[in-house]
């Protein structure tokens, strides 16, 4: 089982928090020794998901964890909000689908940038998304 070594919990409730979450995600990605390309992909995915949460739920929490699984090291971030939830997850994960005027790349784009992508959502209760990138 993967165990969490270092964790950090952040609140995302305004635009400036996006910068903070990106910076902290980058810090933890560097700490586990991710290469620059994987670091950039992870931070970009974090930016998409954090902005999504801000746009659709208004606010939420971001939990960053450094993972160890045997010799493997990874960085994980979990976004949890108590917003309206996502009615159709398959649709939300489709390229170009958006209920706002965005490009509709947030979820599908972020999913393509990381090793592991988990999403749970229930209408009226909120959404939980976690992503992991392992050090190669």
């Amino acid at each position, binding site marked *: 089982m993967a165990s969490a070594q270092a964790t950090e919990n952040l609140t995302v409730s305004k*635009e*400036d928090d*996006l*910068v903070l979450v*990106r*910076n902290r995600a*980058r810090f933890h990605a560097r700490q586990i020794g991710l290469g*620059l*390309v994987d*670091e*950039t*992909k992870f*931070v*970009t*995915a974090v*930016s*998409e998901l954090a*902005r999504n949460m801000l746009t659709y739920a208004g606010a939420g929490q971001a939990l960053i964890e450094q993972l160890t699984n045997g010799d493997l090291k990874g960085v994980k971030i979990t976004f949890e909000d108590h917003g309206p939830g996502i009615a159709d997850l398959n649709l939300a994960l489709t*390229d170009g689908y958006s209920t706002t005027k*965005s*490009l509709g*790349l*947030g979820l*599908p*784009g*972020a999913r*393509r*940038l990381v090793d592991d992508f988990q999403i749970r959502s229930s209408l009226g209760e909120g959404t939980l998304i976690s992503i992991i990138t392992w050090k190669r």
Partner: protein
Amino acid sequence: MASERIPILKMGEFLLVTIQGEMHDSLATRLQTELLEKVANSDARGVLLDISGLDMVDSFMGRMLSTIASMTRIMDANTVVVGMQPAVAITIVEMGLSLPGILTAMDVERGIELLKNKNRGRLSEHG
């Protein structure tokens, strides 16, 4: 935060914008407006957007770059994005972000060359 500005420099017939550090969403939006005003109020024939200082371009910023490019084109000036970091380019492609209408060059010098060629082509089309 609100006082933060991105300087827009006039370089001959072109405008040079160097984006560095953290790109807040509001800063991105303000840059769009200020840049278009500057294009309108000067005789700029092209815009160079230097993003070598950006360590990440997400879909929001990508859309902003595309919007700037299409808007300046309507105003008769091409936009070239220069200096994109390799890791940023790889990420953009892998996430599936397309940057419609954006011209790119390795650095400012090559960006200027590209704009000059574009403008020459345009003159001969009209010629």
